[in-house]
C-alpha cells in the first residue's frame, strides 16, 4: 500500500501550494468556529425540546445568535486571577485546551468522491488535493496525541487555581480521561487491523473498497469507542469533572470571562471532532451514494454532515436521558469492562484475520477464541470478587476494633 500523502504537498512547495494550504486552514478554522456556535445552540434548543421548554428564542431567528451574544458578553466580563493561583500556569491552561481542539480537526476528511474506487482527490486552482486540512502519515495517532495534550489543559487549569473544587475536579478529570483513553486506543487498534493504515484518508478509502469498519470490526469496538469517546469528552453521563452539585464548576471554577469561554469552546469543539473521527473510523467518512451528477461534489459533504449530526444528536440525547455515574461506577466500567472487552475483541479479530490468511478453518478458531475470552473474563470477575471480599473483611475487622468505644455504626 502506498504511504498516505496529500498529493498537493508531495512534490515541492511553491507559492500556490502555500496559498491553498492557507486557504484550507483558514476555512477549517472559520468553519469550526461557526460550527461550535451552532452546536451550542443546537444542544440548548434540542435539550429544551426534550424537557418541554422553549429554550433560547430571542437573539436572532429561533435564538440562533444566542451563542454569539453570550460570547460577546463574556468579552465584557471582568477577568479575575485568584490570589492563590499559579499565575503562569493559570494563564497557560486555556491555550493548552483550545489549540489541540482546533488542530485535531485537521486530519478529518470532510469530502471528496470515494465511490467506485475514487481516491477522494478534488482539484483546487489546478492542483489536486484532498478535502482535509492535512493528511500526515501518522493520522489517527496524531489525534490521540492531541487528546492527550488536552488532558494537560484540564489538569493544569485545576491544579493552578489554588482552590479545592478545581483541584478535585481536575484530579478526577485526569484519572477519567486517561482511563478511557486506554479503552479508546484499544478500540481504534481494531480499526487498524482492517484498514492497515494510520492515515485517515487511507482508512476512508479502505472502507469504500469493502464494508464500513463498523461491520468489518464487528460492532463491539464501535460501541466501546462511543462510550469511551463520551467519557473522554466529559459529556453526560460521564461529566463528573464538572459535577455541579458537588464541585461547583469543576476544573474551571476559578476561570471567568474569556478564559472560561475558551474552555467552553474547546469542549464543544472536541465534541464535533470526536463525532467526525467516529464517522471517519467506523462509518466510511464522507462516503455515500452520489444522487445527482450535476453537483456531485456536494454529496460527500452532505453525507459527512448527516453522519456527524447523528452523533451530535446522540450526545445531546444521552445528556437528556441518563443520570450521572458515580465515580466508582465510572472507574469500574472503564477498567473492568471496557478495557478488557476492547483488548479481548482486538485479539479475537486479529486471530481470525491471521487464521484466515493461513487457511485455517474458521469455526474451530472462533470456538477456541471465545472459550479463551470466556476464561479471561471469568478470571477477571473472580479477581474482582476476591478484592471485594477482602475489602469487606477488612472493614468488618476495623468495625470490630472500634466497636468497644462506639457501637452501632458498622461502616468503616
Amino acid at each position, binding site marked *: 500500500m502506498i504511504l498516505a500523502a496529500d498529493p498537493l504537498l508531495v512534490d515541492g512547495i511553491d507559492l500556490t501550494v502555500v496559498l491553498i494550504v492557507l486557504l484550507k486552514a483558514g476555512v477549517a478554522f472559520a468553519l469550526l468556529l461557526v460550527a461550535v456556535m451552532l452546536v451550542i445552540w443546537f444542544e440548548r434548543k434540542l435539550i429544551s425540546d426534550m424537557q418541554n421548554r422553549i429554550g433560547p428564542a430571542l437573539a436572532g431567528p429561533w435564538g440562533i445568535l444566542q451563542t454569539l451574544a453570550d460570547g460577546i458578553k463574556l468579552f465584557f466580563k471582568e477577568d479575575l486571577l485568584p490570589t492563590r493561583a499559579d499565575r503562569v500556569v493559570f494563564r497557560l491552561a486555556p491555550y493548552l485546551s483550545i489549540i489541540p481542539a482546533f488542530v485535531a480537526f485537521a486530519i478529518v476528511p470532510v469530502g471528496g468522491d470515494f465511490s467506485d474506487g475514487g481516491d477522494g482527490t478534488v482539484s483546487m486552482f489546478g492542483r489536486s488535493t484532498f478535502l482535509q486540512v492535512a493528511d500526515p502519515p501518522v493520522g489517527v495517532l496524531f489525534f490521540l496525541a492531541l487528546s492527550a495534550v488536552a488532558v494537560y489543559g484540564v489538569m493544569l487549569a485545576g491544579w493552578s487555581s489554588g482552590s479545592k473544587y478545581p483541584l478535585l475536579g481536575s484530579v478526577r478529570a485526569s484519572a477519567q480521561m486517561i482511563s478511557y483513553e486506554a479503552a479508546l486506543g484499544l478500540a481504534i487498534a481494531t480499526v*487498524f487491523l482492517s484498514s492497515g493504515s494510520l492515515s485517515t484518508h487511507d482508512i476512508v478509502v479502505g472502507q469504500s473498497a469493502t464494508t464500513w469498519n463498523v461491520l468489518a470490526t464487528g460492532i463491539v469496538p464501535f460501541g466501546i469507542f462511543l462510550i469511551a469517546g463520551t467519557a473522554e469528552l466529559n459529556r453526560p453521563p460521564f461529566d463528573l469533572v464538572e459535577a455541579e452539585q458537588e464541585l461547583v464548576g469543576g476544573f474551571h471554577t476559578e476561570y471567568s470571562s474569556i478564559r472560561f469561554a475558551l474552555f467552553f469552546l474547546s469542549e464543544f469543539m472536541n465534541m464535533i471532532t470526536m463525532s467526525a473521527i467516529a464517522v471517519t473510523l467506523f462509518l466510511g467518512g464522507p462516503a455515500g451514494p452520489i444522487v445527482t451528477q450535476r453537483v456531485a461534489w456536494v454529496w460527500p459533504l452532505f453525507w459527512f454532515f448527516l453522519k456527524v449530526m447523528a452523533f451530535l444528536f446522540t450526545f445531546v440525547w444521552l445528556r437528556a436521558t441518563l443520570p450521572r455515574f458515580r465515580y466508582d461506577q465510572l472507574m469500574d466500567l472503564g*477498567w473492568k469492562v471496557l478495557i478488557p472487552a476492547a483488548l479481548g475483541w482486538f485479539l479475537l479479530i486479529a486471530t481470525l484475520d*491471521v487464521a484466515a490468511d493461513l487457511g485455517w478453518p474458521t469455526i474451530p478458531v472462533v470456538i477456541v477464541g471465545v472459550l479463551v475470552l470466556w476464561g479471561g473474563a471469568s478470571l477477571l470477575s473472580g479477581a474482582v470478587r476476591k478484592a471485594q471480599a477482602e475489602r469487606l473483611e477488612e472493614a468488618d475487622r476495623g468495625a470490630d476494633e472500634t466497636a468497644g468505644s462506639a457501637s452501632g455504626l458498622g461502616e468503616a
Partner: protein
Amino acid sequence: MLGQYLPIVFLIVLAFLFAALSFFASRLLAPRSPNDKKEAPYECGIIPGREAPERFPVRFFLVAMIFIVFDIEIIFFYPWAIAHGEMGLFGLIAVLVFSLAVFESFVYLIGNGALEWGPIRREAQTGDVVSATRTTSTTVSRAGIRQVGLEGRTGGDS
C-alpha cells in the same frame, strides 16, 4: 514528507492567534476592579477556612501507573496491527504472549484491590431496620396518615 505537516503548523498558529487576540480584546474591553473577596478561592460566598489540599488520594496515582502499562501495550499493538498480514503466525503468537503477560499482571492488580473504589457492597441488611410485618400496603397507608401542616385546621381534607 515533512511538508504534510505544513497545514497543521498553520492551524496551530491560527488557533494560537485566536486565543491570544481574544485575551487581548478582553483586556481592552473588560472592566478591572479586583478586590480581596473576588480574588479569594471560590467557596460559595464564605471565606475559605482551609487551604486547598496539597495531597490527593493515592488511588489516582495508581490509576496513572496502570494506565502507563496499557498505553505502552497499545503503542506496541499499533505497528503490529498495521503489519499483521506480513508477520503472520509468528507475530500473532508474539502479541498473544505479550497480552497474556499484561493481562495476568492486570488480574493480579485487580485481585489485590488496586481498582476498588467507592462504598463497600454488603448483602442487603434485614432484621432490626426493616420488620417482617412491614409491607407495601402498611407503608403506604401509614404515609397517608402523616400529613404535615394540618395542625389546628378544622375539617377540610382537600
